[in-house]
């Protein structure tokens, strides 16, 4: 008992609130020092847009790429909100429209509004045109339609003088001063692995893994939805994203860590409890007095019910005794009758033959014995009451006395029944005592034999419980053997009851008008169902459970090898339940507790979600993980490519660069380093680094690059666009390819 851990010893787990979007108090700020001619860099991300003039060090506006359009009832007008402003109002949140279908833009109206909003907040004041060169990101090797539409929009709706495109992760690499390295950009919709040699990306061997922050968030959302199917509130994508960002981390050694993740010690450290806000329903607290009164009333009721039941049982007992004595008397009398008379008597009583009657008598005797053992109220008075009138013949009695005599006869019967029951009980008690004594003697003389007997019995009982459970389970399956047997029984029973001479159905008989079908005309027909009813074994099960408990108690007392841990109850303890630990963490669960009803536990998910980048097969993505992609790029694709050798690869290992939202997961860098080291040749000069600011460096790189000479040669001007059309594009080192 010493090592029994109690719940009281463990402090409750702290529950963190599930974060929601912090509502901005002010509308998005406007930029004050706008100038024409200065490039505007736009990082139009799938989740977040960053926009600002290139002379600044940080984007002026960072906002989600969404629009919300709805009719405001209060002012009866259409309202259009973009970006952070959307959160100024509650109605707008339910009307969010995204511009994207997966990684592609499919709603250009939203994009136009977002750009309107962006330029407006940049303080663009030139008339009839946005008089600034534009540098914008695009999906690497985007479908032509996407680029054409974007160019159309920028040149025609905003009259921009010139523009250039590039991939955001390469801009980020540029910002972080890279020249030769392997760029791993984890975006909102996809993850790219791009080798860069001397500032030039080798796009012919770059690879894209279709897994990004959006997919990860959706995956987490679906997973949590299945984990807690009856959770009272629905968590929003925003909340899921926040949970992912705050609590997920990359495991340094996944296969090792995941194996022990649901162990109690680990959960103590790593299980996160999150609670959604809810309004607590306060239950009416009853006063001491009220409670007492209620309990009193209840006791009273129970007592009355008990008494009534006892009365009923006694009545039944008396009836049974009368029946029993009648039939035994009949049997005696029948001995002196001839065959014919015997048969007549039997027919009158409703028996087929004598054996049936004997069976009936035996049954009566059995049930009598059982009834006597039940509680029928003890006669408190020791002295037997007297029934004087019973001795007097009827003729001498008046009407009144006759009534009294009937009453006394009944009372005498009751009394006798009670006395007999008492005797029966005493006998049973004595027998039990003797058995206990024998048991004790056995135990004292042969402990090991006694223990093995008890253990055997316990084993048998447990086996029986299991067997019953299995049978119950099997019956739920229509095709199982048990269920088939049951159907057979039903069929044969039904056949038996109908009798053999039943005519075959003919003509158009349905279940409703079959003249041969007289089932139900007689009430006893329904007894068929009772005969085949699934075993109502609640009582029996209860009995078995009681017995198991009893034996376990005995074993606990006398068997030194039997501990609390071995008891059946202990084996069903929540600590031993993997599912409990997965769903409810390292504490017991109280389904009545309103707080616990509104809590979710994040444990395995914390490392499972980021792991998908390394093992996309977890989420059913049939692509290689980033380590395998990086390895192939470094060791096979690049040396195999024309014009490159192993030297470039070695050079590239020195600068493996990660950027983008998912690189913010804790341990990402360390894991990538150790996994790559495991597959690269011994002594490779591997160095993994992360962008200074994985979220904003892409924009900063754009801004910085837009002012360089290279950019000046890469811009496509409005004139060129008008002349050559949208397919005309100048390739640059930032990942813009001619399509």
């Amino acid at each position, binding site marked *: 008992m010493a090592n029994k851990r109690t719940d009281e010893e463990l402090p409750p787990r702290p529950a963190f609130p599930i974060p929601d979007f912090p509502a901005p108090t002010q*509308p998005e700020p406007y930029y004050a020092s706008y100038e024409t001619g200065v490039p505007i860099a736009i990082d139009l991300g799938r989740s977040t847009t960053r926009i600002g003039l290139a002379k600044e060090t940080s984007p002026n506006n960072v906002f989600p790429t969404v629009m919300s359009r709805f009719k405001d009832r*209060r*002012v009866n*007008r259409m309202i*259009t*909100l*973009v970006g952070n*402003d959307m959160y*100024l109002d509650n109605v707008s949140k339910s009307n969010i429209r995204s511009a994207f*279908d*997966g990684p*592609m833009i*499919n709603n250009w*109206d939203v994009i*136009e509004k977002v750009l309107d909003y962006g*330029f407006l907040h940049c303080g*663009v*004041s*030139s*008339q*009839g*045109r946005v008089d600034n060169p534009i540098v914008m990101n695009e*999906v*690497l090797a985007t*479908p*032509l339609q*996407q680029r054409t539409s974007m160019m*159309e929009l920028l040149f*025609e*709706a*905003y009259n921009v003088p010139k523009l250039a495109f590039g991939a955001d992760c390469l801009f980020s690499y540029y910002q972080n001063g890279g020249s030769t390295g392997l760029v791993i950009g984890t975006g909102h919709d996809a993850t790219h*692995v791009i080798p860069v040699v001397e500032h030039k990306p080798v*796009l*012919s061997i*770059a*690879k894209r893994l*279709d897994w990004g922050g959006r997919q990860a968030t959706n*995956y987490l959302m*679906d997973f949590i939805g*299945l984990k807690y199917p009856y959770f009272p509130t629905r968590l929003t994508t925003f909340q899921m994203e926040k949970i992912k960002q705050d609590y997920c981390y990359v495991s340094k050694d996944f*296969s090792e860590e995941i*194996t022990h993740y*649901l162990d109690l010690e680990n959960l103590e450290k790593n299980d996160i409890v999150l609670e959604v806000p809810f309004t607590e329903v306060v239950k009416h607290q009853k006063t001491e007095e009220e409670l007492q009164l209620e309990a009193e009333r209840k006791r009273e009721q129970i007592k009355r019910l008990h008494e009534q039941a006892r009365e009923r049982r006694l009545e039944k007992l008396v009836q049974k005794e009368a029946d029993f004595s009648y039939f035994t008397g009949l049997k005696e009398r029948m001995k002196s009758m001839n065959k014919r008379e015997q048969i007549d008597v039997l027919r009158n009583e409703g028996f087929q033959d004598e054996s049936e009657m004997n069976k009936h008598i035996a049954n009566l005797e059995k049930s009598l014995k059982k009834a006597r053992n039940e509680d029928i109220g003890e006669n408190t008075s020791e002295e037997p009451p007297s029934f004087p009138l019973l001795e007097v013949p009827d003729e001498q009695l008046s009407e009144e006395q006759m009534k009294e005599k009937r009453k006394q006869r009944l009372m005498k019967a009751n009394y006798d029944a009670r006395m007999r029951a008492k005797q029966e009980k005493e006998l049973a008690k004595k027998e039990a005592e003797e058995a206990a004594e024998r048991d004790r003697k056995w135990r004292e003389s042969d402990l090991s034999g006694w223990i093995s007997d008890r253990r055997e019995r316990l084993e048998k009982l447990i086996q029986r419980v299991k067997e019953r459970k299995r049978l119950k389970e099997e019956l739920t399956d229509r095709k199982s053997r048990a269920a088939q047997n049951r159907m057979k029984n039903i069929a044969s029973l039904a056949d038996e009851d109908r009798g053999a001479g039943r005519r075959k159905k003919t003509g158009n008989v349905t279940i409703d008008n079959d003249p041969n079908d007289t089932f139900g005309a007689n009430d006893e027909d329904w007894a068929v169902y009772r005969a085949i009813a699934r075993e109502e074994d609640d009582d029996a099960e209860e009995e078995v459970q009681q017995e198991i408990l009893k034996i376990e108690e005995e074993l606990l007392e006398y068997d030194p090898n039997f501990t609390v841990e071995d008891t059946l109850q202990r084996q069903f303890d929540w600590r031993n339940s*993997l*599912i409990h630990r997965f769903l409810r963490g390292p504490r017991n669960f109280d389904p009545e507790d309103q707080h616990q009803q509104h809590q979710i536990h994040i444990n*395995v998910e914390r490392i*499972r979600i980021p792991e998908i980048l390394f*093992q*996309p*097969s*977890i*989420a*059913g993505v*049939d*692509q*290689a*993980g980033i380590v*395998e992609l990086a390895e192939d790029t470094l060791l096979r694709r690049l040396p195999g490519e024309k014009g490159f050798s192993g030297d470039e690869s070695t050079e590239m290992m020195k600068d493996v660069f990660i950027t983008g939202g998912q690189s913010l997961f804790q341990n990402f860098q360390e894991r990538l380093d150790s996994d790559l080291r495991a597959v690269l040749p011994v002594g490779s000069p591997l160095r993994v680094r992360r962008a200074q600011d994985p979220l904003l460096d892409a924009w900063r790189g754009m801004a910085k690059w837009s002012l360089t000479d290279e950019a000046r040669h890469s811009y496509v001007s409005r004139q060129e666009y008008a002349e050559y059309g949208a397919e005309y594009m100048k390739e640059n080192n930032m990942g813009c*390819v001619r*399509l």
Partner: protein
Amino acid sequence: MSNIVEVSDRLNAPLPFKPPSYKPAKRRHRFLRQILNDEAKRIQLKQQHAHDPNLVTYQSLSAPPSLRPTKTYCDITGLPTHYKSPHNQLRYYDKECYDIVKHMAPGVDQQYLALRSANVVLK
């Protein structure tokens, strides 16, 4: 309240930097699959016209399948496992998980399978 009306008005008023003559063309709402199909057709035509083995396209960038042996995990708890239920192909970690897998409400197993794109998709 007046705040959002103001913000919305400012965005929806005629913007000075937009040419007054500009009218947005009627745009077709295209889904991802359409966009990718169109692009594939365009690339095919282009390749027929003048073949370029090194052409970089959206499709060609897609990462190849993994050549490493895939590890399997329990669909319920996410723990590594090798067991698979014969009824509904769900992977499970132990007896307790199997109890859940066996008695799953109809449709839920498909939802679990959808998490790893192994669900049955009717077309």
